[in-house]
């Protein structure tokens, strides 16, 4: 929406009317769910490694400030320059400053969700710097001028035909061929020239190891390695929760992330960077910078219940298994992080005023919690955020933004009715006698029966006899 407020209901209705989009998602998500399941044939192994991965993430959060200091110390010792940013604006300013110092004109990027959060590409373009996304999916989305619809597979909303048309329109000399191998090769040719010419490479971080000052990145394409190896300067961006204590903490995370995300035993590349080119080495960047971003994460950390949001390793399994996401796709969430994790992360980062609809975009079916490799209680946090949205002065940004006097009155009336046996009897009697006469256009009923002012559901029917009546008829006395 123009004012920045997410209208999930409207966006999801539009998505539901798009059979092409629904078909693309259905096919992709069914495939991903099947492949993930095939990677966990042994339930005991899944339980054991999952407990370990969750423990690794919790231990990192328990020691978060100390580990970040240790990470900084060890990165600096390795020759990596560490920068801290409280806000996305600060992080963008740090990036611009580094780019200005090396007079950068062309930046190639590996996949980074944090830079999506920062809207970094738009900022750099405003400053006349050419930025090229090099992950194939991100490249497609960038050419298309849209947003990623999935954190792991950004262009999952498009099919081969749509991508072939896009390449034909945007890439010089492209043939109109609906062939994934041809299209991939075309992107290879365009992007290899850019890796060679780039002044700076940028990337995200999957895990940063405090013990050794090592940045771990996983990927299949090799573009991440290109961005972090070939250009003379590498800038890595990480959310401050991405740190782990020890190098040994990496294998459990790496064991679950690709299996949960795409159903692969491991990604093609696990790229562990512990510094810029050392003296005597023939390649690697001359400078490596690490930008550690807060952007609301320290506020999430302040609340012992909401803190679990920060365990996330960004595998995307929760969205692949979400009955809402798989129907409406990623764009309906209008956020860098869609799906279940986005529904709890984005409102906490951006506030409940504009993102208050997201925690309601959920059936509370718990599929995401069952599948999460680090056991984040997503549904509990979702419930908590629904409460925070109507409770002023709470722990979350813009808490109470969705508070409504009418709703508050209804709930206090409901509480009073249930607290008094007499009121309860009168109310249930009234409902059983008169409830069915109420028109479906009545304020609260309308929310259920109508969508876009069109009758879509029938009114619930009230029983003519109350439960108490029926119980008495069976000879069960009132308490």
């Amino acid at each position: 929406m123009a004012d920045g407020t997410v209208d999930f209901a409207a966006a999801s209705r539009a998505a539901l009317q798009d059979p092409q989009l629904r078909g693309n998602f259905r096919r992709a998500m069914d495939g991903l769910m099947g492949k993930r399941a095939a990677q966990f044939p042994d339930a005991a192994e899944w339980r054991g490694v999952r407990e370990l991965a969750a423990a690794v993430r919790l231990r990192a959060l328990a020691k978060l400030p100390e580990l970040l200091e240790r990470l900084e110390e060890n990165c600096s010792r390795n020759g990596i320059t560490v920068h801290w940013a409280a806000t996305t604006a600060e992080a963008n300013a740090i990036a611009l400053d580094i780019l200005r110092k090396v007079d950068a004109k062309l930046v190639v990027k590996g996949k980074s969700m944090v830079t999506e959060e920062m809207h970094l590409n738009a900022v750099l373009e405003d400053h006349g710097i050419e930025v090229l996304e090099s992950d194939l999916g991100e490249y497609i989305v960038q050419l298309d001028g849209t947003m990623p619809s999935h954190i792991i597979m950004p262009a999952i909303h498009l099919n081969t035909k749509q991508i072939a048309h896009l390449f034909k329109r945007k890439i010089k000399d492209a043939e109109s061929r609906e062939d994934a191998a041809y299209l991939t090769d075309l992107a290879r040719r365009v992007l290899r020239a850019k890796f060679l010419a780039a002044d700076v490479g940028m990337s995200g971080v999957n895990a940063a190891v405090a013990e050794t000052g090592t940045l771990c990145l996983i990927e299949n394409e090799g573009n991440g390695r290109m961005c972090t190896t070939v250009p003379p300067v590498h800038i890595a961006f990480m959310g401050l929760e991405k740190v782990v204590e020890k190098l040994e903490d990496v294998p459990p995370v790496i064991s679950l992330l690709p299996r949960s995300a795409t159903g692969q035993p491991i990604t093609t590349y696990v790229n562990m960077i512990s510094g810029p080119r050392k003296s005597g080495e023939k390649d690697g960047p001359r400078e490596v910078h690490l930008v550690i971003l807060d952007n609301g994460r320290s506020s999430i950390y302040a609340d012992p219940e909401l803190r679990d949001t920060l365990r996330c390793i960004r595998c995307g399994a929760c969205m692949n298994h979400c009955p809402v996401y798989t129907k409406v796709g990623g764009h309906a969430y209008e956020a860098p992080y869609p799906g279940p994790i986005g529904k709890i992360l984005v409102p906490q980062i951006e506030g409940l005023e504009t993102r208050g609809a997201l925690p309601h975009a959920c059936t509370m079916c718990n599929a995401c919690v069952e599948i999460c490799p680090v056991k984040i209680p997503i549904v509990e946090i979702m419930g908590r955020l629904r409460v925070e949205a109507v409770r002023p002065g709470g722990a979350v940004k813009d808490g109470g933004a969705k508070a409504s006097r009418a709703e508050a009155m209804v709930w206090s009336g409901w509480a009073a009715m249930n607290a008094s046996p007499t009121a309860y009897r009168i109310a249930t009697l009234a409902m059983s006698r008169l409830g069915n006469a109420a028109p479906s256009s009545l304020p609260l009923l309308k929310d259920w029966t109508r969508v876009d002012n069109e009758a879509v559901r029938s009114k619930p029917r009230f029983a003519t006899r109350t439960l108490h009546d029926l119980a008495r008829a069976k000879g069960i006395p009132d308490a």
Partner: protein
Amino acid sequence: MPDARSAILAKLRADRDAHPLTPPASDFTPIEAKRWPDDDRLPRIRRLMEAVHTEFLDATDTDWPAVLREFLAREGVGTLLYAPETEVGKRLEREWEREGTHEVERVRGDPRCERIDPCLTPHPSHAPHGPLPSPGAGEGPTLIPYDKPIEDLKPQLFTAIDAGLTTTRGAIAETGSLILWPSADEPRTLSLVPHIHIALLRADALYDTFLQAMREQRWADAMSTNALLISGPSKTADIEQTLAYGVHGPKRLVVLVVRS
């Protein structure tokens, strides 16, 4: 920004101290328990890696340069980039010399290198125009030493080199992954930019898990500037979940298994 740093750390510390968190013990036994019998590791690695289009060559200490030569000739590979300071690199030079085909190039735009259009032929042997003619007797693929900084090698590295040869520090049975440990002698881009990556794997350097490898090799004591696990050629499924190989990194990964 030093201000952001101290503000963030102070807030995290105050928040954590107000609500300390006691994490459960980290029990690594589910990973430590993953074990394979000695004879099963290599077949497992091979099966997992072949499933993602990795190719394997079998050789011994004595014949690996010949096996490599034969492969390069068969596939019509014109140029091989190698690390001249490593034992493997020195052996390669000796063997090429012995065969009387010592063609160590100081890199320049050799027209031979243009024989394969590397961008258009993911598998030279499967290319529409059929396999390229093998070099004749006495004519081996040209060896190109990686003996200067990437800045002096960049354009050729991206356009004129068909294959790169690296060593490995072993392989991992659980996931079918090679361990690469780039160094001053063996640059990072050797396994990344050439269209074919050939990796020499010693058959006695096999580990059960990533965890076991990093413990036994004591990684935490001294990390390489760029330690790597490589489990296949570059690939993507970003176009409608269709697997395509060779998107940005090597199009082919060839593991040369060397037995004592």
